[in-house]
């Protein structure tokens, strides 16, 4: 069992619903302050976006953040260097597209993540069928490979994915790319399907925009992932204090 999984299982056992905010690395010079602020606001883990030029699974908010980050010169090395020194006390999960790691080298990428204190990776364009080399690379360095289940995933496949996923299972609330939405979508159904297949912690993401939605999602799942809603405010100039307050409003909704 990977450290990430141990950590998240332990959290679940305390009865706390996991709040996992997403930040695009390098989007602003003080992006790390936002990560810290989110933790201060009550985040239980943080997803760190590694920018990619062609983010097929992202909506316009995260696309824009990624482009800004690239324009700022962010690379896998640079962002790893920035997080490496921190003692944040919660797990970090990298989120990027496969080509970034593929190009850097799978083993080298996995080691780089691990060395920087990153505990897991979400690679939305890496299907379970293609994931073996990456999982192998991650395995030896204790980086968890998190897979997504989509509303379209048929049940045999849910079982397979749930079995392969490490740390947690990412349950997509809807058939959509990242972005903001006004309801919970298919989350309850997807979570239920995952639960039938595994007792791994299951977090809902894609479109969780308001604390109210987060509360509803947490009624069925073990945690929520909040991305575009936070990234949008940072793009609009939010300070770390703003981020802390916003994350905290989600925290209060979950507790």
């Amino acid at each position, binding site marked *: 069992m990977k450290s990430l999984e141990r950590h998240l299982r332990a959290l679940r056992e305390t009865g706390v619903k996991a709040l996992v905010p997403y930040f695009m690395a390098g989007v602003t010079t003080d992006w790390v302050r936002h990560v810290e602020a989110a933790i201060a606001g009550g985040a239980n883990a943080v997803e760190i976006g590694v920018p*990619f*030029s*062609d*983010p*097929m*699974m*992202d*909506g*316009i908010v995260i*696309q824009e953040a990624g*482009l800004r980050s*690239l324009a700022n010169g962010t*690379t*896998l090395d640079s962002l790893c260097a920035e997080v490496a020194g921190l003692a944040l006390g919660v797990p970090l999960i990298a989120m990027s*597209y*496969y*080509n*970034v*790691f*593929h*190009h*850097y080298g799978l083993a080298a990428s996995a080691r780089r993540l691990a060395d920087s204190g990153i505990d897991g990776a979400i690679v*939305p*364009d*890496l*299907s379970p*069928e*293609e994931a073996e080399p990456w999982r192998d690379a991650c395995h030896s360095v204790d980086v968890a490979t998190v*897979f*997504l*289940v*989509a*509303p*379209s*995933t*048929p049940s045999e*496949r849910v079982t397979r*994915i749930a079995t392969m996923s490490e740390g947690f299972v990412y349950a*997509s609330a809807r*058939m*959509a*790319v990242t972005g903001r939405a006004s309801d919970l979508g298919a989350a309850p159904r997807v979570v239920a399907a995952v639960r039938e297949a595994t007792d791994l912690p299951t977090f809902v993401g894609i479109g969780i925009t308001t604390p109210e939605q987060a509360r509803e999602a947490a009624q069925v799942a073990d945690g929520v992932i909040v991305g575009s809603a936070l990234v949008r405010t940072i793009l609009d100039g939010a300070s770390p204090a703003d981020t802390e307050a916003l994350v905290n409003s989600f925290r209060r909704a979950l507790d």
Partner: protein
Amino acid sequence: MAEDTVYMSTPDEFGRFGEFGGRFVPEALMPACLELEDAFLDAWSDREFLAEYRSVLADFAGRPTPITPLARLSERLGISVYAKREDLAHTGSHKINNVVGQTLLTVRMGKSRVIAETGAGQHGVATATAAARLGLACTIFMGEVDTKRQELNVFRMELLGATVVPVTSGSRTLKDAVNEAMREWVTCVEDTHYCLGSVMGPHPFPWMVREMQSIIGHEAARQLRDVRVGTPDYVVACVGGGSNAAGVFAGFANSSAQLIGVEAAGGAAVGHGSPGVLHGMRSLIMQDEFGQIEEAHSISAGLDYPGIGPEHAHLAASGRARYVEVGDEVIIDALRTLSELEGIIPALESAHAVAWLIREAGREIPLGSTVLLNMSGRGDKDVAQVLSILRSGS
């Protein structure tokens, strides 16, 4: 190149051609890719489906397209050039072969809508056309830059009842149109088929599109036999994603012909790329030192793509085909040469293949060689752009 290797056969169960191919898509799309693979396999071995596919190509799309001996160009270059006239296919390029098949498959899968990316607009027009014929709803994603340089094709798609969505992300060209189409597909995969326009993307697209384009090569091989030219020394095609090249190569993969894919210098995935993963496939991709995809830059919207279909990456790696490049600066001349000598205005894409012949006849291509040139499309869509380049006096 082992003696007994069979080229361009079926990919492995993961959709791989050698070390290229595969299926790198969001989980939301995986079921659709699997369903498509099943549907294609099933249809492609169903006589009735094949009969319908072939009859639509014949009665609607104008197949077979002829082989034209290019007498005056041949004389000028000292080689014998035959053109396979995909420019005469309905909508003006080879793209129709693929969309006829995919739209029939869409109906067979019980879906009511297609989406597609387009670069030059030819695939968009072809998709809108085939969709109209079957009463399918249709949305086309097109980079904003391309909507401007290919305005005529935007108009055509609109007249055909399609919705054209200009894509403003990234380089605003073909690559970004694919991203956007993929993003859209995630939201509507239930009732919508993504009608990909080249031999790229996740399995089964590269294979399926090649199969649907292979009619080009099979026809050409038969036609050249009929006129007693037999196997040409060279088979030459331009390469964007690689569908027209794959289609014509398929007829000669296991012959003695040398297969040449001509890339735009600014979009040369074999020439300047390295293995990478983009748009659902592992292939050769133009990327920077950090694995960020580079923006292609070509005078021709249809070749303005930093990747190449995985089977081509494999054909290049195995040495069965060779990929060369020509720069923007010789394309207009090549287009004019063919127009003035032969009365055929090629698409800017196809003009790349012509430009390579002009450059290499008597050099890489020995004098006296026989060449099959795939005329992938007609230049009507490009003439406004070409004239404005000529008039701005370059």
